[in-house]
């Protein structure tokens, strides 16, 4: 195996099964994120990427398998307790507080006690990071554009001072300029030493960012490896992601 995998895992998933109602979506993938590592999960839409993040953050119940974060089992914990451990799920932009202002949304990101005391300092950082959010801090979240919502979701995640950021498809439905800006920001978050688990449909922006890549198809991990091997394999990408 390669160097990055030698890092002590901060997140360890083993044989995770989960889904909605009678439909099982995740058929037991095992995934690991090292401390300080950036792991990208690539896969087509509808193959379990969002389900995976929702299962880790506790919004969906785990049906079988094990999940540990920094050695602590996550199984059976409510989502607020999992967030309290430092697992921050940054959703696609649909899980904001629509009738609250940008500022109030960000403050809610610091809801947990230790982060709440430092919310002013975090706010300044987030506004420096995404000046657009600073300009719109009095605006209701539901009035924001798609790109601004994504910035707000990431900003809210940064307010939480988490140890692991799980980011759901930052590029979905956004203009290329905005995608590039978002990925520059995510690169800076990575440089700050935090662990990142990012899911994406497209391999276009993740090659430089990722330390390690998983391919998730139909609820299974079909490949795992270094980005330079996996993403250079055109045949592989064509097969699993349908790109040319």
């Amino acid at each position, binding site marked *: 195996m390669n160097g990055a995998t030698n890092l002590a895992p901060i997140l360890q998933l083993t044989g995770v099964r989960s889904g909605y109602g009678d439909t099982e979506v995740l058929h037991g993938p095992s995934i690991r994120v090292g401390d300080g590592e950036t792991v990208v999960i690539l896969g087509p839409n509808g193959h379990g990427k969002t389900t995976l993040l929702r299962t880790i*953050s*506790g*919004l969906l119940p785990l049906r079988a398998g094990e999940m540990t974060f920094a050695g602590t089992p996550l199984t059976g914990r*409510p*989502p*607020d307790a999992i*967030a*309290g451990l430092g697992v*921050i*799920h940054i*959703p696609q932009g649909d*899980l*904001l*507080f*629509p*009738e*609250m202002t940008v500022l*109030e949304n960000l*403050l*809610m*990101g610091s*809801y*947990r006690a230790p982060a*709440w005391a430092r919310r002013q300092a975090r706010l300044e950082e987030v506004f420096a990071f995404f000046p657009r959010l600073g300009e719109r801090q009095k605006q*209701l979240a539901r009035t924001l554009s798609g790109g601004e919502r994504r910035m707000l979701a990431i900003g*809210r995640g940064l307010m*939480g001072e988490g140890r692991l950021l799980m980011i759901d498809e930052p590029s979905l439905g956004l203009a290329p300029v905005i995608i590039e800006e978002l990925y520059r920001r995510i690169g800076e978050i990575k440089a700050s030493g935090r662990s990142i688990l990012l899911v994406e449909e497209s391999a276009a922006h993740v090659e430089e960012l990722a330390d390690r890549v998983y391919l998730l198809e139909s609820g299974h991990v079909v490949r795992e490896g270094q980005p330079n091997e996996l993403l250079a394999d055109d045949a592989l990408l064509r097969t699993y992601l349908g790109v040319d």
Partner: protein
Amino acid sequence: MQNLVQATYSGLVLGSIYALMAMGFTLVYGALRFLNLALGALFTLGGYVAWLVAGQWGLAAMLGIVAAFVVVAFVGAGSYQAVFRPMIGRPGWDITTIIASLGLGIVIENVILIGFGPRNKSIPLLLEGGFRVGDLLRVQYQQLLTLAVSLVILLLMGLFLTRSRHGLAIRAVAQNRDAAYLVGTPVHRVFAIVMAISAGLTAVAGVLLSAVFFLNPGVGLAMGLRGLIVTIFGGLGSIVGTLYAAFVIGLLESYVSMYLGARWALPALFAFLIAVLIVRPGGIAGLAEEARV
């Protein structure tokens, strides 16, 4: 003219009490999406706590209001943990919680009946006396105090919901429960806090109204109905809509009582509500999503 002025004034005083009462329904509906029909009984319970503290033990009447808020808030939070929390999220919970709240209300009313008997009681007035404004208006200090207490509490609620960490959390849970979970909000604890605050507000309304009229184990029923009318008229879960609705309903009731007689008040309110709902099914604020909890 004299009647009109007097009725308008009484309507505003009534409206301020209804606003407290309906805020209880609205907060719970906004955050938990269920109508807590036990609030009528908690209104009554608030009156009895104040009657015990101020009427029987002879302590300051203001202390009676505080005691009513605290005691009934605990009852509200306790009812969440014991009765409603196990139901929420289960299949059919929207119906089971309503039925359970109705049952809980009946239990509370009957406990009051057994404990205190059926006879009318009166809570000592906080302030005696009043003054006249020419021939137009008779003002009791008690009524002014009622207005003041209601408005101050509503103002504090507004500040709490927009400025404080727990207030933000209540609105967050109301707007998107999953998102609230993701930022680490202990959703069930927030629900318990909402139930406590709403019960406390209702109890204060109970004290204020019982100090003007009288108190018996059944007073909560009619008030619960008025609270519901205001809440639905205001657009279920909309705080600003509820405030408008409380004063509209208070004024309407006051005019009907003045010109047609008090017995027509409740029928007229329901007729008005039905007419409004035919035209605007979402109540006055139901179409605009803004200002939800």
